[in-house]
C-alpha cells in the first residue's frame, strides 16, 4: 500500500518504537493486570442473572435521565438560536462572530464529564448539574450546526427580503428561517437522542440520572444490579435512536 519500501519499513520501525516507549512509560501493575481474566470471570459470574428486583430504583433513575435529556434539549434548542446566529459569518458582525465561535470551540473541546463536575461543584450533587451540562453540550452542538447551515444557505433569498425594506428580525423570519428550519429541527431531535446517551454518564460524577445509580451499584460491588442497569441503558439508547430516526424520517 505504501510504495516506497524505505518509508514503509521506517513507519513500521517507528510504530514498534512507539509501542515500546508507551508501554514502558505507562505505570502498569502487571501483577494486578494478570489477575484480570480471573477477576473478569468472577465479576461476570456475579453479574448473571441480572437483578431487576429493585426496578423502582431503576425506573427512578431512567425517568430522571430522560427528564434531564428532554429539559436540556428544549432549553438548548432555544438558546442555540442566538448563539448560532452570532456564529454565522454572513449575518453577525466580526467581533460578535469571533466571540461566539470562541464559545463554541471552548464548549466543544471539554468532555461533558468535565463540565458536569464543574457544575456539581457550583450547584451541588443532583440533576441540576446534569441538566446544565447537557444544556451546554446541546447549545454547543446545535449552535454549531445552525451557524454552518446559515453560512451555507442561499444569500440571495435574504438579499431579496432585505431589498423590500424589512427590518433585521423580519429578514430572519422570512429570509433565513424557512431555509434552515427543517435541518434545525432534525439536528435538535438528533441532539435529544445524544442527550439521552450522555445523561447516562454525567451521573457518574454525581450529576443525577441513571448514571448515578450505576456508579453507586459498582462501588458496592452490586454487579447483578449493575448488569440490569447496563441492559436498561442499552435499551434506552436503542429506543432513543429509534425515536430520533423516526421523527427525522418524518421531517424529511
Amino acid at each position, binding site marked *: 500500500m505504501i510504495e516506497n519500501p524505505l518509508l514503509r519499513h521506517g513507519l513500521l520501525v517507528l510504530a514498534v518504537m512507539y509501542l515500546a516507549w508507551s508501554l514502558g512509560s505507562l505505570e502498569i501493575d502487571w501483577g494486578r493486570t494478570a489477575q484480570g481474566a480471573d477477576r473478569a470471570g468472577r465479576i461476570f459470574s456475579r453479574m448473571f442473572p441480572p437483578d431487576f428486583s429493585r426496578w423502582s430504583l431503576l425506573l427512578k433513575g431512567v425517568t430522571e435521565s430522560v427528564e434531564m435529556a428532554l429539559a436540556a434539549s428544549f432549553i438548548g434548542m432555544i438558546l442555540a438560536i442566538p448563539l448560532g446566529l452570532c456564529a454565522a459569518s454572513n449575518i453577525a458582525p466580526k467581533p460578535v462572530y469571533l466571540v461566539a465561535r470562541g464559545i463554541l470551540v471552548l464548549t466543544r473541546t471539554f468532555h461533558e464529564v468535565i463540565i458536569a463536575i464543574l457544575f456539581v461543584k457550583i450547584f451541588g450533587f443532583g440533576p441540576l448539574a446534569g441538566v446544565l451540562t447537557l444544556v451546554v453540550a446541546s447549545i454547543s452542538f446545535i449552535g454549531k450546526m445552525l451557524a454552518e447551515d446559515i453560512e451555507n444557505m442561499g444569500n440571495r*433569498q435574504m438579499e431579496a*427580503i432585505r*431589498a*423590500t*425594506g*424589512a427590518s433585521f428580525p423580519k429578514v430572519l*423570519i422570512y429570509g433565513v428561517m*424557512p431555509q434552515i428550519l427543517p435541518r434545525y429541527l432534525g439536528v435538535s431531535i438528533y441532539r435529544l437522542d445524544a442527550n439521552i446517551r450522555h445523561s447516562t454518564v454525567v451521573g457518574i460524577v454525581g450529576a443525577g440520572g441513571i448514571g448515578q445509580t450505576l456508579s453507586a451499584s459498582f462501588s458496592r460491588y452490586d454487579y447483578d444490579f449493575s448488569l440490569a442497569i447496563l441492559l436498561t441503558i442499552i435499551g434506552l439508547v436503542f429506543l432513543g435512536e429509534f425515536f430520533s430516526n423516526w421523527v427525522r424520517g418524518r421531517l424529511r
Partner: protein
Amino acid sequence: MLKIEALSKSYTAGIPALDNVSFEVAEPQVVAIIGPSGAGKSTLIRCINRLVEPSSGSAILNGENVTTLNSAGLRKARRRMGMIFQEYNLVERLTVMENVLSGRLGYVSFWRAWRRNYPAEDISHAFNLLERVGLTGFQDQRADALSGGQRQRVGIARALMQKPDLLLVDEPTASLDPKTSRQVMRILVELAHELNTPTLLNIHDVPLAKSFADRVLGMQDGKLIFDGTPDELTEDALTFIYGEEDWSPEATAGSPEPEEGISSPEKATAV
C-alpha cells in the same frame, strides 16, 4: 423622480466598478441599461437601494438622498423601491402568497409578519397582482415547485406589492429561455407603464432592450457612455458601447453576452 449624481463604487481600492455616473429619470419611463458584462450595470442598480454601499456620489429619489440615510431611513426608502432579480430570489420553501406578501414586510409589524396575518387590502392586492402576472390559483404552491418563468412572475408581483416609486430590475431574463423572456418582459413593462412606475432595467439582451425600453443607457467600464432612445441605438452606437475589438473570438471567449446581443443588430430590430 430619480436623480443619480456622480455615483461611484470601487470594491478594491483604485479599481472603480462604477465611475462617476450621473443621469436623471424625470418621468415614469422604462430605462434599459446595456453594456458588456463587468460594465457595472448590476453595481449601479444595487448602489441605488444600497444592497451595495456606494463609495461616493448620491442617488436622489423623489427629493430624498438615499445615500446618506441612516439604517431606519434606508429601510423606509427601500420600501419605496421594488427589486426584481436575475435568479428570482424567491424564498424557496415559502408559498407563492407568502413570497408576494413579503413585499409588504416593511409595513406590517413583526408579529403580524410572523403569523402571516396581513391586512385585507394587502391580500386582495396580492390576489390582484397574481392575476395580472397570470398566476391565478398559484397562491398555495411552494415557490420551489414553480418553473423559472413562473418564479420571475412571482418576483414581479412581490416587487409591485411594495407599491414602489421606483422599480430596480437586475437581468430579469438572463436565466430564462427566449420565449419566456419576452413574456416576462411584456408583463413587466406593461405593469410599469400602467402603474406609472419609473423602471431601471439591467439587461444584456439588446434586442429585448430595444423592443421594450423607452430609453437606453449604455455603460462600459463603470462609466455611462450612452443615453438615448432605442431608435438612436444604431449599429455604430452598439459598437461604441461594446467596443469593436471585443467582438474578436479571443476577446469574447470569456464573455458571451456581448456576442449574442450584438452580433446581428439588424436582426435584433426585426424581432
